[in-house]
Each structure stands twice: as structure tokens, then as C-alpha cells.
């Protein structure tokens, strides 16, 4: 690790790693749901977002432009999901 940027890259995982938290919130697998980035308008599956999970919460970032798409924080009494970095989420209807 030469500098902070390398360190941050090394700590990054895929959105797939927070599939459990997302399933707890949405009640279904969300890794194949698509988010459109409000910053650059690219679409990406949630499983393919850049995920930073070593902080007090989770930050999901756009793999194309790195903008924060969503943040998830869990407290003893509540789960917060902030997703203003997404224009929309698109998912298949449940069968």
C-alpha cells in the first residue's frame, strides 16, 4: 500500500458483500437489481457496486464515477437507508 488511494481500493469489496443487509431491508435478493447513478446516469447491478463496509455503516459507490449511491447504517433500534445517489432502482417483479 503506497498511499491512501491504494488503501481505499484495497478495502473495497463488491455490492454482493452487503447482499445480506439489502435482503434484510427489501425482503428479497437485490444483487441483480439495477441502480441508475444520479451522478453519471450509468446503470449497474447492486452486486457490482463498489462497497465500503469497514466503517460504522456501508457506503455503495458507482463503479463508473465513484459517486456515493447509497448508505446503510444500522443502530440498535433502526436501519437507515439513504439512497439519493440513485435516480432509481429497477428490479424484476416477485414471481
Amino acid at each position: 500500500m503506497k498511499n491512501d488511494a491504494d488503501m481505499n481500493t484495497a478495502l473495497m469489496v463488491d455490492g454482493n458483500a452487503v447482499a445480506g443487509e439489502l435482503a434484510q431491508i427489501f425482503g428479497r435478493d437485490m444483487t441483480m437489481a439495477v441502480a441508475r447513478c444520479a451522478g453519471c446516469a450509468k446503470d449497474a447491478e447492486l452486486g457490482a457496486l463498489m462497497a465500503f463496509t469497514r466503517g460504522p455503516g456501508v457506503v455503495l459507490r458507482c463503479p463508473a464515477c465513484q459517486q456515493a449511491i447509497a448508505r446503510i447504517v444500522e443502530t440498535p433500534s433502526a436501519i437507515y437507508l439513504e439512497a439519493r445517489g440513485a435516480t432509481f432502482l429497477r428490479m424484476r417483479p416477485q414471481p
Partner: protein
Amino acid sequence: MATEVLVRPALEWQAGTVTAIRPETHKTKSFTFALPKWMVHRPGQHYDVRLTAPDGYRTERSYSIASPPERVGELDLTVELIPDGEVSPYMHDVLMRGDQLEVRGPIGGYFVWDVAMGGPLLLIGGGSGVVPLMAMLRHRTAQHATMPTRILYSSRTADDVIYRDELDRMAASDPALEVFYTFTRQAPADWNGYRRRIDATMLSEVIKPFGNRAHIYVCGPTLLVEAVANALVQMQLPTEQIRTERFGPTGA
């Protein structure tokens, strides 16, 4: 009462019972769990494991499933010991056969492959990134599938290779499967194969017979996955055929 088929039961925590613990290498062990609510998984999926301290502090980690879905009622998680970690030292040093542990899964629909998706199949793993790839290979073998398959597996030394015997056995009895090892720190003295980090030259050699048709799965430490994914994209391989799973700063 009619049998109720739960197609999509809620993902909930359950107490898994450890029925076997098997050392794989000097820093990885496989744990077999029997689950009261076992559910068939897709190769590549993971389980979350949760520990709760007496004071209520909780922490959880995700571990890839190593066993194939054909093994009904139980599953294997192969866990690398991270010495300053919160969950893996407990599993390695404290957990014993017969103990219970809170788990939730199977999780994830992104980094998955099953025989219905077809081939050719190219698996690229670094360190314990081989674990979900092994679930895919075990599933492929259990289904007697014959699509051309190659795995490129990077380890620091020969002692760090997980599942070595089984991989070599599988390859010896299956003409459609080829295993390529590379050693990044120290190769065995008589080694004729790769002895460096995975690079573009190595990737193009391994992928060559598949052209641009391969389904590609890359799993390992984040920097390895980054390097491999970037090289594959520069080789003009279709990005929708490349699936990655980064597991952070640890590993080979």
C-alpha cells in the same frame, strides 16, 4: 396437510450446528454446518456468520459456501484465519464440533454459476478466493457436466493452496477441466508452471482456447481482482460475461 414449497423463504438468522472441522492449509479450515432450515444454494453464494458478545456487541462476516448444492441438509464454509479479525479467530481457535453459530443465507444472486448457464467456464482465484470457485467446480462434477473449464489459481506458496488434492484429482479424471497454479512468493523447486502474479500475458494464455465466449468469475483480494478485471476489459472481453467478488485487503 399439503406440503408447502417455500420458493423464497425470508432470509433469517438460524443456529447452525458444527458437525465437522477440517484443516485445509496452515491458515484455512473448513467448517461443516447442519442447518435446521437448510435451503438449496447456487454455487458462488455466501452465508453471513454473526457473533454476539455477552455485552450485546455484534459483528458479522460473509463466508463463501464451499460445498455444492447437491449436498443436502448441510454446507461447508472454508474460512481463512485473519489474525486481527473479529470472527475468523473465534471460528479457528474457539469453535468446536457440536457448537452452534448464528448464520444466515444463502445470499447473493450476482456471483453465481450453475451448469444451466453453460460454458466455457474460466475461474480465476487468489488465496481463499478459490472457495466459491470450488463450489462451482464441485457442482459441475456432481452434475457430470462437460463444458470446457479452466481455473487459474494464485497462491503465495505451495503450502497456501487450498483443496490441492481434490483439484488435481478432478483435473486428472476430467479431460474438459484444466487447473493452472501460479505461485507469487515461492514456487516448489521443480515447478515448471507460472511463478508470478496474474498478469495480462498469463490471462491471455489461459483464456486462449475459449476466445471471447467464456463465462469468467474472478474472486480474491481486492487488488488482485482489480488487476485481473482491468486486464480482461483491456483484452476486449465482454464485461457482461465477467463477474467479480472482491473480499478486501487480506489474502495472497
